[in-house]
């Protein structure tokens, strides 16, 4: 009983020591989670090397224990160990695909926003149409064309996720174009390129960076969904989606950890990214408070 009463007090002291406002505890936790995830997945090959094709058929589907923190799967492979490598792949694919989508969306939105007029109308119509296609189906279509591989997955995510970026960049540029400082620059003799690079781009870049960050969770979900369907990375490679897919059989025999543990990794890491991005958006645009205080 004494323990329970002491805990909030302890939490309060910790908060006051770190000078945290109530909402910031979530942000700090999310930051820590993300740092651990990124550093862990970068260092994994040095610290905890994994033989991707190794199996241990004498210890299949063993429950979580100190030897195997998240148990083993139907081939006796350590789930926690493979999940670290799965996260590595997911973060890599997520970051690269988000970058591809950002470049694509930035270029399309940039052209539409600076040229305006008919070009803008046509490009936005194209964006609207692609937005009407279920992007998982489109992603499946792209993977089917290129045959499942790392490159195909990145292309599949990148080519289906640039629409929101294009819209953001376009609307930002359209609203900036009419601002007095742009008129002033043009009257001062600045050319089209100079206005774009020196006056418009610095306003758009923070938003673009935020859009990229917000896209990483979506890219990770898309990648795991493709792998889960068997259309992502080669099956022997440890990816979070592959592991959830492989674990389905074990799950039905009661070994729930083989599927649910890798999924929990996705949930924790993508939630951490979302919490941080929401705080960032609050800073960038105080009018639209996301109110994500966990």
């Amino acid at each position, binding site marked *: 009983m004494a323990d329970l009463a002491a805990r909030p007090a302890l939490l309060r002291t910790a908060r006051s020591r770190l000078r945290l406002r109530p909402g910031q505890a979530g942000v700090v936790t999310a930051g820590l989670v993300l740092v651990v995830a990124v550093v862990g997945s970068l260092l994994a090959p040095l610290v905890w090397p994994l033989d991707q094709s190794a199996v241990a058929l004498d210890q299949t589907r063993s429950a979580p224990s100190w030897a195997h923190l998240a148990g083993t799967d139907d081939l006796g492979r350590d789930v926690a160990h493979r999940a670290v490598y799965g996260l590595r792949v997911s973060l890599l694919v997520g970051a690269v695909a988000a970058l591809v989508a950002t470049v694509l969306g930035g270029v399309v939105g940039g052209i539409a926003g600076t040229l305006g007029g008919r070009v803008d109308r046509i490009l936005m*119509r*194209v964006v609207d*149409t692609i*937005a*009407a*296609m*279920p*992007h*998982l*189906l*489109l992603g*499946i*279509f*792209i*993977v*089917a*064309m*290129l*045959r499942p591989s790392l490159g195909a997955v990145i292309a599949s995510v990148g080519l289906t996720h640039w629409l929101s970026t294009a819209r953001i960049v376009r609307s930002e540029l359209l609203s900036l174009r009419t601002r007095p400082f742009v008129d002033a620059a043009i009257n001062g003799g600045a050319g089209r390129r100079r206005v774009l690079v020196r006056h418009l781009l610095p306003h758009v870049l923070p938003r673009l960076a935020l859009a990229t960050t917000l896209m990483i*969770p979506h890219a990770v*979900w898309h990648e*795991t*969904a493709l792998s*889960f*369907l*068997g*259309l992502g990375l080669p099956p022997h490679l440890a990816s979070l989606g592959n592991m*959830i897919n492989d*674990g*389905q059989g074990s*799950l*039905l025999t*009661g070994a*729930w950890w083989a*599927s*649910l543990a890798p*999924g929990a990794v*996705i*949930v924790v890491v*993508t*939630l951490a990214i*979302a*919490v941080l991005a929401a705080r960032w958006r609050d800073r960038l645009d105080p009018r639209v408070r996301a*109110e*994500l*205080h*966990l």
Partner: protein
Amino acid sequence: MTRSGRLAGAGAVVRRRLLVAVPVLAATSIGMFALGAASPVDPAKQYAGAAAFTATEENLAQIRANWGVDDPLPVQYLRWIGNLVQGDLGWSTSRHEPVASVLAARAGWTLLLIGVSLALVLAASLLLGALAAYRRGGLFDRALRTAAYAVQSMPVFWLGLAAIAVFALALGWLPAGGLTDVTATSTSWGDVAHHLILPVGVLAVSQAPWFVLFVRDAVAESMRDDHVLAARARGLPGRTVLFGHALRTALLPFLTLVGTHLPELVGGAVLVETVFSLPGLGAVTVAAAMGSDFPLLAAITLVTTAVVLAANLATDLAYAAADPRVRLDG
């Protein structure tokens, strides 16, 4: 203006939307055809499957000639689109039957899954979102938002597997997959409904966060509107103010956004169907992708896109019918 007066422009809007939608769908189909044609996969070998290793070159050439896959691409495209317009969707090479019969046999189950889930999500999100907005920053509001953000980061297939582990395996309340009991000899609606509880619930829960958060924000916004404040000032009960005034104002913009969220729902349905082994379009889509069955993939993508565009048009017309301020001449 009367309601019929407001909808007078509807015909023109439909025509204008079609004028845009048709070229767009045509461009989409060309794009997909080009992608399919650029694929390194040999359709004849794919069709023959394992037999491709033993088949003679003449046999493979015969298959190619039958399908005309060696013709120039524009010729192939025009033939495909010509057949499409006449209602012939082509031949599914992965299922060895016409694409139209694959769609006819399976689209119904996918539509049922999506339809019931959507109805459930709409009802739940309107109720929960409005309740959360009533006391902004209150305990219920914070709990609901935290739950929404947590669920939002759960992949739907993982949620499905977790639901199976809990409700089908640990508790044994509901079946883990399929549409009917293994022992059943015919499909009875009660049996099907029993099997659909988990898939529908999982799809609804996974889609709910976006809807709940949107309703919550929109209602919170309209709680500050003049007419809502006036209703409060007149001393109307909180329930009447919330559901009769604030929610009603927030409802219309919400309904148009539902249409834009449909593609998400379709993607979710594909994954849920895979988890619960339902005989909808999801499983055949995946099989078609693995077997490079482009006629089937292209047809599924085109048909769903057309359905989404039609749904968007329908919500816009409904909006115009319901909101006197919206005119259809824009």
